């Protein structure tokens, strides 16, 4: 059953009348009949965790917003730029009202003045569609003054980025939205605190998929949501599968489904019959790579189980590679991504990604030495944990984990 990708089950759910006919805005109506604190309690009880990658409990995040502050904001992270991630795009293209309803429920729960949807620049046509949705809702009295006669006022706006991965990092996103360079901020203060959010006001920043879950939680109840998935990872998750599988695409399945079920039953197994799986990046370029062993394949895709195999489920952008893929080349590809996307603010990330790229190029060209492999591991370890945002850690991951799991792939390039 789809909770999020309902565009696959219901024709034209991107039209307001059709969305309303299928329980659209039932969750919003329920929420408006509750106090904001009660809404936060429901979301807390559902066990919903952030779908952008970090997996932070959503209701807890909302509860950090100080109630007494007069001005608060909701910002939706629709910058979807992680390598291998294309789930938010499908939600917004095919089921846009559900995202807007979820964000309005969040806005009501923290009593926000406005919602800003920060879209990656390439999603301008999605932005146009969302603008049309917002206008349709305004005409119905669901956006703007006195929403649904509740006395609560809230505006919803879209904002286009312009091609910068870093703007998916919440504090960089806020800077970008304010018209400054999209670079991370020093924290504390955190976005939820006065001084740390949008225009220095307390702000919730949530991913698209996270908020698209909220209408279901409100209309069906926290228990219904919690009944899906595992103890610590409630609900469905959209898994974006790409690379060497027969059927790449988005798959919405309960959290806790095994990698084997996803990759074989749904994605159809290896793209080429005679080329078995070798490795996967379960969270795009930024999470640790793992070999696709039987143990890994039988691991449930949940926050807690992925930790046991030394990786993360993160945004669940699962990039699959077969036995023909050289992991040194993978390390190079991912490093070039982070070198390009490093915002330049913190020295270890700005310089480190540059050095890593140079030395890996040398190794791939056959001009490297065994010491170069140690050198990149050393550089990567010295980048991790030394930067203002997680991009520095993300950039270190591909090096550290490809060398750890696939030392022979590096050794073959540096044998004299």
């Amino acid at each position, binding site marked *: 059953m789809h909770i999020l990708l309902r565009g696959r089950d219901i024709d034209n759910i991107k039209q307001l009348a059709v969305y309303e006919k299928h329980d659209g805005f039932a969750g919003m109506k329920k929420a408006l009949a509750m106090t904001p604190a009660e809404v936060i309690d429901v979301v807390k009880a559902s066990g919903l965790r952030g779908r952008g990658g970090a997996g932070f409990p959503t209701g807890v995040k909302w509860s950090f917003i100080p109630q007494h502050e007069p001005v608060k904001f909701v910002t939706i992270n629709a910058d*979807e*730029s*992680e*390598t*291998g*991630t*294309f789930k*938010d*795009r499908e939600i917004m293209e095919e089921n846009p009202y559900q995202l807007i309803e979820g964000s309005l429920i969040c806005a009501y729960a923290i009593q926000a003045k406005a919602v800003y949807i920060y879209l*990656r*620049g*390439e*999603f*301008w*046509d999605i932005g146009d569609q969302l603008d049309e949705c917002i206008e349709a809702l305004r005409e119905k009295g669901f956006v703007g003054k006195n929403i649904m006669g509740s006395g609560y006022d809230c*505006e919803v*706006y879209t*904002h*286009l*980025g*312009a*091609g*910068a*991965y870093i703007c998916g990092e919440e504090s960089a996103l806020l800077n*970008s*939205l*304010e*018209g*400054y*360079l*999209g670079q991370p901020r020093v924290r504390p203060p955190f976005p939820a605190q006065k001084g740390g959010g*949008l*225009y220095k006001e307390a702000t919730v920043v949530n991913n698209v998929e996270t908020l698209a879950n909220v209408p279901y939680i409100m209309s069906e109840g926290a228990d219904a949501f919690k009944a899906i998935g595992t103890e610590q990872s409630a609900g469905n998750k959209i898994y*974006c*599968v*790409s*690379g*060497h599988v027969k059927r*790449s*695409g*988005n798959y919405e399945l309960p959290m806790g489904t095994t990698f084997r079920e996803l990759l074989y039953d749904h994605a159809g197994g290896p793209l080429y019959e005679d080329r078995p799986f070798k490795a996967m*990046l379960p969270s795009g*370029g930024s999470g640790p790579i793992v070999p696709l062993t039987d143990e890994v394949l039988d691991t449930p895709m949940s926050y807690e189980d992925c930790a046991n195999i030394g990786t993360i489920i993160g945004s669940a*952008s699962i*990039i699959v*590679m077969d036995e023909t*893929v050289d992991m040194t080349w*993978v390390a190079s*590809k*991912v490093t070039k*991504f982070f070198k*390009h*996307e490093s*915002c330049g603010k913190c020295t270890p990330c700005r310089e480190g990604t540059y050095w890593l790229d140079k030395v890996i190029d040398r190794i791939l060209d056959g001009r490297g030495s065994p010491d170069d492999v140690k050198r990149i591991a050393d550089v990567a370890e010295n980048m991790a944990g030394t930067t203002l945002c997680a991009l520095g850690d993300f950039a270190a991951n591909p090096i550290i984990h490809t060398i750890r799991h696939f030392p022979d792939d590096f050794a073959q390039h540096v044998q004299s």
Partner: protein
Amino acid sequence: MAIIGNSKYEERINHHIAKYETKRSAVMPLLYIAQEEYGWVNQDGINEVAQLLNLDPTQVKSIAGFYTMYSEKPKGVYWLQVCTDLPCALQGADDFHAWLKEELGVEEGGTSADGMFTVEHVMCLAACDKAPMLQCNFRYVEDLDQNKMRELLAKWRAEAAASMNGRSAE
């Protein structure tokens, strides 16, 4: 040519300035409008955006330089940005990108001699299940191969020629 005082943009400019708490927040949408008017983000566009938002042109230029979707030099009629990031590369995007440059006789980031096509590679465009893919003037073109691309190049050339003829006939 200008964006200030141009009735084509007035409503959009006012909408963007009104939707934020500060004028400065409108710098990104206004840069897109400048790029639409001039074809790239030139100094005139930067000066106008700065004037509209009470910013220094240097501040506006720094924003334009930070993001890859603002072009700081003129491009061909069709700006082709090929995703060569890992998931696309696993589906042959590197070879596709190299072939496309050869087909058009351009270096990375260069424009074909007839001024028609600029080709460059970009990072993940969130279309990993439809590789190889590119965006042409910010519009996604997915599930590509060499034959499909040759047809598209011919189609785009014909469209550009038709639009040129239309203009000279006016």
